[in-house]
């Protein structure tokens, strides 16, 4: 069953010099338990589509349905807080918070605080194959791969079924990148997440369940 459905989504914006029609009617249905790759040239609209799916913006035409409900009718903050977790290329961890605090931050947004949250953070850190010792460290003290794992732990701490990743291996070496993809694949296959990865890295495509290409504002499944 599709957890996220994109229906005829159109989106254009004005850059410094021209009008860009980023999405010209994209339609697709993403299902739980699968790992999707979103590929395309630079400026093809990958990130635009990702931001629309993450609830950071609304489509100008068409709609995005999460579990059958249009995001246009939702409180986008709540949607992001509870349903759509995003992993970024630059990890985007709070530099002044420890790993534990970073991971528990989304929980606190949902009122899940205290020891329970910290125990949950410990579980999640273990789940992303990091030792407990990193919990009290600051992001700046970790390697890139470790930081991205923390970011994944934070993303899944939201208990959402939709995991969006924007070039998650962009800042990592091949080995670390591969591990992250494997981790995301495990999350999709074992935990039933719908994981959508926007990437340029062709090496990771074989590990994907489905590959979608965006070209000329349209999405095609490859």
């Amino acid at each position: 069953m599709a957890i996220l459905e994109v229906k005829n989504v159109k989106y254009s914006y004005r850059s410094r010099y021209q009008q860009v029609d980023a999405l010209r009617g994209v339609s697709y249905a993403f299902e739980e338990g699968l790992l999707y790759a979103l590929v395309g040239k630079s400026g093809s609209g990958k990130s635009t589509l990702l931001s629309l799916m993450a609830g950071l913006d609304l489509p100008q035409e068409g709609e995005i349905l999460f579990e059958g409900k249009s995001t246009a009718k939702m409180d986008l903050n709540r949607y992001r807080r509870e349903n759509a977790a995003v992993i970024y290329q630059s990890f985007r961890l709070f530099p002044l918070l420890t790993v534990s605090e970073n991971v528990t931050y989304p929980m606190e947004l949902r009122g899940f605080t205290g020891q329970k949250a910290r125990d949950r953070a410990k579980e999640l850190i273990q789940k992303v194959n990091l030792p407990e010792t990193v919990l009290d460290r600051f992001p700046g003290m970790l390697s890139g791969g470790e930081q991205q794992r923390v970011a994944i732990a934070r993303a899944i701490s939201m208990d959402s079924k939709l995991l969006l990743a924007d070039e998650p291996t962009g800042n990592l070496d091949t080995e670390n990148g591969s591990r992250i993809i494997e981790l995301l694949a495990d999350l999709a296959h074992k935990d039933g997440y719908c994981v959508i990865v926007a990437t340029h890295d062709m090496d990771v495509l074989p590990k994907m369940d489905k590959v979608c290409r965006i070209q000329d504002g349209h999405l095609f499944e490859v």
Partner: protein
Amino acid sequence: MLPVKNGIRSVLRSPGKAVLFFFLLLSLTAVLALGLCVYSAVSGYLNDCDVYYQTIAELEYIGHSYPDSKVFDEGLAQSLHSGELDIDAMASLPGVERYQPNRSALGLVAGTHRSDVEVYDRDCAVIIVKNLIWSDSTEAYLGIIQETLYSSTDYTGKGVFLSNLQDADIDTDAVYVFTGRFFSGSNSYPWLTPEPAYLELAEETVSPAPYAVLDGGVLPEDSVYRTVADIYAARNNGFRAIFTENAEVLRPFQQEELILTQGRLFDAEEYAAGAHVCVISNRLASVFGVTCGQSVPISFHFHEGGIYDLQDMSFTDDVPFTVVGIYKATADFPDWVFLPDSKEYDPCEYPTGYQVGTFVLDNDRSSEFYAAASAMLPNGFRLTVLDQGYGTVAEPFRELQSILRIFLAVCALVVLCVLALFSFLFVSRQREAAQTMLALGSGKLHVYCYFLSACGAIALVASALGAVLGRLLESRVLRYVAEFSQKYQTVDTRFSNEYLSVTRTLEFAPVSSAALYLTAAAILVAAVLAVCAVFVGKTLKKKTAKKRKKAPAPKHTGHSSRLHGRLKYALLSIRRGGVRTAAVVLLAVILTVFLGQLTSTSDIYREQLANIGENTVIRGYASNSKGLDMKDLVIPAKNLQELYDTGLLHSLDVSRSLAHYRYVGLVSDTAGNTYFLDEPYIPRGIYSYENWLNQMKQEPEWVATTSLTNSPEYFYKTPSVTWLEGYDESCLRGPQCGVCLLPETMMEREGIGLGSIIRVLIDTLTPPGNYGTYEAATFDLLVVGSYELAAAEETIYSPYECLFPIGTEPGTCAENDAFRMLYSHSGQVTRVGYREYGSGAPQEDFTVHVLDENNLEDEAFYQEVLLPDTVPGLQVFSGCDKMDLSVPNAYCCMISEEIYEKYLYALGGAHSVTGYILYTDDNGVELTANILGVFRKTDELTADVYVSPTGYKASFLWDAYRYTEADTQSKLPGLRCQSAVFTLKSAYDLDALRDALADCGFTTPGSLDARNYMVICDMDYNVSVRTLNRQIQYLDALYIFLYLLTGVIALVISYLLILSRKSEIAIMRGMGTQRLRIFLTFFTEQLLLLLLGCVCGFGLWYLFGGAVKPLYLCLIAAFAGCWLLGSAVSIARLMRSKALAVLSDRE
């Protein structure tokens, strides 16, 4: 050309930026050009003023001879010789361009004879007289002038009266030589009063007798009388020669008191060469018979003891001097001849007269000089700054110039900021373009051309149009400047001693120049190109993007277990913020303390300004039209009383010359011994009496004053007075009569001690309303003080209270007219010493107590002391009833045993006494009262005579003597004072005083349409107030800028600080954190940091004794407000930005 073309294209293709900067540069050029134009106009005007106006400070010695410019003052010479007055030190003070001493000599043109009123001593004469006869009617000898050895007017062959010779042994058949002084009265013959001539010839003092018999009727050739005549002639025919390095800076020319009617002053070459040229008065030109261009042979006499002290008659050889200018003579400068200073002559080191020298000052630093030089002046010297009105005219322009400097500096700063932003946006943001050009093989020159042409194109067009706009607005702005300066020139200068100078005017008429605008535009274009070039250089250096530094891990401080929500994140951020947290707190501390310092500094100046008046004593004086002389004036007492009644004055001291006096002798000495004095000789004849009065006018004055300290003689020095026990200066104000202060020199010479009673003969006493009536009289005065002489004359000072009761409430003090009668609160009338010569009345003063039935004290005195039969030594004459003493219109009296035995008993027991008692509106009233009896003087019965009240009332118009409001109106108009000195109650009332002075009929010196001038000595105060005001004004202007700057700093830094946290905000947004939560998280963090910083700063400020004023608290609040506003705006802006763009590193 390609890079230029591409550069311009790049501008055209970013129209938003281009238009913004076009207008910014246009506005800045216009403002900058206008600022420069106004600054140039103001500076030019100030330069013109500096040339047009000349400030000098005239140094004068207010010594014994002041204001006689012909007398050599030993005191001045002593001060200069001893170094008490350090001229060299004063001349080296800041602001002095040079010092010009008063160098003068006695000049003489051989063969000239002057008879004008301005000669040195017009009346002195040496004559040979024959055919002397005694004239009873005139009480003088009449003779024929056989020869005139010297006289300004030649009376040879005419008759002459010779006075004061009634006791002389004159041989009427002999021929006499006389020295003395002529007097021309109403008689057709001149009168000569023989006087000895005291001369210091060579090294011996010669004092030839006033007359001598000539053997054979011929005066020997070597006679000393011929020398006397020669000296008289040289003094009177001579003139004052002034040697000057620059005549234009001498007071008479600088103050335009002397106006050239012909020719010119000296030129630079004549000064340099010490040329034989001169500028003379029209009067002397007439005496010499010369005009401009003609020569006159002049010889000079130099003597250290004053130019008129002709010890050896040694004159230099005649040298022809060419007259280059002729001025119109005035009373003050009748016969001065100005000459370029020359090394050829060596004029006297010490000046003759009171003018010591002139400091030529830098116009802008005269106040500074005055403040420093005043502190160096010893007692008796006066320094007067005369700036021709420069201060009033230049002050607002100087203020404006200072403001413009600040304005231009701020403009320059703004220009730099705008240019930096401009360059950043146009250059730094195009780094990629620059690198692409380099990568494609373009040289650096091409890259520079690309960017500079782009920036230059905008700057050129904008600056050109800005210059045109500025030029169009110029006339309006300059008109506003003129109005502004005009407004500030209307400073109230009335009565101030700071503005005694003549006022010259110089119109503010700036000439604008298009070049200035072109220059401003060119400067701006050059600045744009320069700043852009710097940015291009920096851009080219950054070939590779900065490697992103890995942020250092924060210290693990604090635990989050007990915290949650937005406060948790804010506190963790504060705790772990490290440098960022510390920087915010430190900045808040610094700015809080800085604001405290700003308000405190401003307050210190304001406090000083507020308190400056507390310790300032401002004095003032009535003056002549020039505002300098304060003696011998005619000041209506009514105006003074009105001034006093305003309540603004702390004290008002006045003085009036009562008469000229001649010391008769000692009536009683300190030990109480009394002496019999012969009646002084008073001529009875009309002409001889007239001549006597003329002689008396040469005698020193008897002055009534309310204060010696504030008398004109002591205005510039403190008097040294020794008082008789029980007396002090207040006695001059109190109802004391018959007392006096004598000069120490006189007391020493005459053997007078404190407590002695002296008798003086006076020439005239002119009662109010009875001018022109002359009386001769003697007064007996108790000597209660001695003072060190400050003036040439041996003035006697007595209380003024009798003239009009300044400082008393109406009805509490009686008005007594000029000492003739004092009238105390107890009702006692004391006849102080009036004598009517030839009346046959008792020739001794006595005290009279006229009883007043309306006076309760007198009533009690009657009942309890005088009327009972227990009166000591009571003898009631037969047929008399003692009770008649209280009967109306009885005209009776009781006299003391002493009076009776001394006079009446000797006369055969007269039954009445006749006295002559003066009262206010008349010369006096003769009172005859029947003597009822005799009493013995006791402690209670102290008067010599007790007169019945009715008789007294009938004769003396008792009520008329009471000082009432009505009296003020009726009597004061008749009174005139000769000097007035006042002290202001509070310096803060200065403006009110100016108005009050104007309301009371006084005018500022220099006005020609009035007679009563007043000067307020407020220069020091004004300078201090002005300096403080200027500092406050500058600080206020600067502070507004600094306050705004502080606000802007707070706004910008807080904005940027939050901006640097955009990724955190984006992450939060990405995770769906509520907007309010995000806002409050960061806002709370900033609020807490700010609170911490401000509290610490405030605590520090308070701890170190800083003042906490409402303004300070407001400023802290404003600073905090700005900081929080900056934070809030920044947070709000970040929450509107594209979160994904931030999170995806695409921004």
